[in-house]
């Protein structure tokens, strides 16, 4: 039983790490209805920038602020150079644009900061501590705390602020938003900047776990089943989806894995997502497609 709980908690905490990446997708999907393929590159870019600025001798907080500024700038530039020209184009066009962006940002990051693998130490011990016989990773707990703060902050932002409301309005109906005088360009710049911020947090946490390297862009693949489960439009959904994916993949690995010769952790989430698509295509918390007949 103790072992079960330990696996479960380990899984849940690992899931939070996926949620962090998934949240970036949700932000942009909510505001523009586009799956931002470049989110993974942004995670890498943020982590690379942070590590490189740190390596130049800047203190931790300065590096954090500078990286944040870079990510916000990146968001604004993306809006100005790419998105503004694609208003009212089919969504597949926007999606293709994000694929292009993804490659560009990856290349740019490694061109500016170099492509060697960096270590990143956030100063948090990764030594598990003993909680009534269950071993819990401190690092994972810290990551969960970060995620909780982010979610609370973003939910407030979306529901209680004027710009947050405008973001949701734009997501629902571009044209109507324009007709009431919401400037699409500001809204998109804000949302990409916010996605950049989320990418920074995800980049730091994943970077300190895996090392800052090209493989960071691949963590987005784990975010996809999380999104399908939680729904593309819900931030709490991204968290719950992450928790479910994390917990089930670890439990499946331990309890079902041996029958398949192990290693099912890598594909189990996708099977789960596929099954989910058949039952609830909007995800657990996604906005229902409202259709009036």
């Amino acid at each position, binding site marked *: 039983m103790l072992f079960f709980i330990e696996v479960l908690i380990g899984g849940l905490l690992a899931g939070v790490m996926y949620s962090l990446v998934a949240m970036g997708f949700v932000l942009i999907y909510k505001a523009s209805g586009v799956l931002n393929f470049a989110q993974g590159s942004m995670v890498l870019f943020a982590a690379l920038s942070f590590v490189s600025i740190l390596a130049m001798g800047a203190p931790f907080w300065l590096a954090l602020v500078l990286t944040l500024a870079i990510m916000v700038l990146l968001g604004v530039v993306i809006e100005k150079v790419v998105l503004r020209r694609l208003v009212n184009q089919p969504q597949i066009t926007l999606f293709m644009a994000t694929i292009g962006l993804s490659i560009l940002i990856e290349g740019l990051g490694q061109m500016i900061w170099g492509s060697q693998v960096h270590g990143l130490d956030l100063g948090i011990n990764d030594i598990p501590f003993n909680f009534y016989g269950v071993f819990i990773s401190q690092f994972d707990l810290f990551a969960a705390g970060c995620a909780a703060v982010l979610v609370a902050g973003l939910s407030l932002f979306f529901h209680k602020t004027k710009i947050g409301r405008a973001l*949701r309005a734009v997501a629902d109906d571009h044209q109507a938003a324009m007709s009431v005088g919401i400037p699409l360009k500001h809204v998109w710049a804000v949302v990409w900047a916010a996605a950049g911020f989320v990418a920074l947090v995800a980049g730091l946490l994943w970077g300190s776990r895996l090392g800052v390297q090209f493989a960071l862009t691949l963590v987005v693949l784990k975010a996809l089943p999380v999104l399908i489960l939680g729904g593309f439009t819900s931030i709490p959904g991204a968290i719950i989806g992450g928790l479910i994916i994390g917990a089930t993949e670890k439990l499946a690995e331990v309890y079902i894995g041996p029958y398949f010769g192990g290693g099912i952790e890598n594909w189990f989430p996708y099977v789960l997502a596929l099954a989910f698509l058949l039952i609830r295509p909007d995800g657990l918390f996604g906005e229902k497609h409202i259709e009036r007949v």
Partner: protein
Amino acid sequence: MSVQGNSILTVNNIEVIYNHVILVLKGVSLDVPEGKIVALLGANGAGKTTTLKAVSNLLRAERGDVTKGSIEFKGKRVDKMTPPELVKQGVIQVMEGRHCFAHLTVEENLLTGAYTRKVSRAEIRRDLERVYAYFPRLKERRNSQAGYTSGGEQQMTAIGRALMAHPSMILLDEPSMGLAPQLVEEIFEIVRDLNQKEKVSFLLAEQNTNVALRYADFGYILENGRVVMDGKAADLATNEDVKEFYLGISSGARKSFRDAKHYRRRKRWLA
């Protein structure tokens, strides 16, 4: 039409081309006197919506372009302004088919209308109450997602949302679309109310000629992207051609098939 008093909006001989090739408006001129309701009438494809969108500048997003002519609001050229700038100037469009934000609550929808205004929360609150006073039904539904409200409630939400911007002129596109006759009357009553109490001028595009002419002060009839007739609403309502072609009232008994030719001929004369 002779301009009475100051005109708040003047559209001067505009031509609109979609996608660089499709000529939709072929020189439309019209005039909205301050504090009046002007109806823009015509069949499907006559150019009513295009005219409204040319004024509110939502055309650009649909690859339409005003290639000739000018548009003046309160004596100022506005044809190069972006929609947010126009809303700040006091012109706002309520689009055809309501276009509420389906996943936002009714109240949130209304609040988005105040996006361009930099005023205190208390003032926004007051404006909300003012909108609820005109549309008591919206107050009951304030916390429902707009997508789940009825067509009439959505139309009210759309008009209320525009009102939150404190406009001096509302471009209202087809408010009667898909609504029961009784609701249509209700909506138009409110439009008249807003016009009289809030001094909002209206340019409204409408297929329902009968209702529109009853509530409007002036009317313009569009056909194939041209204004073919204009005048006081009361005069238009009694005009023989308007009665026959737009109100479905003919003077004589039932028309025989032979008269169809006659109809065509007269229509051509109109255009």
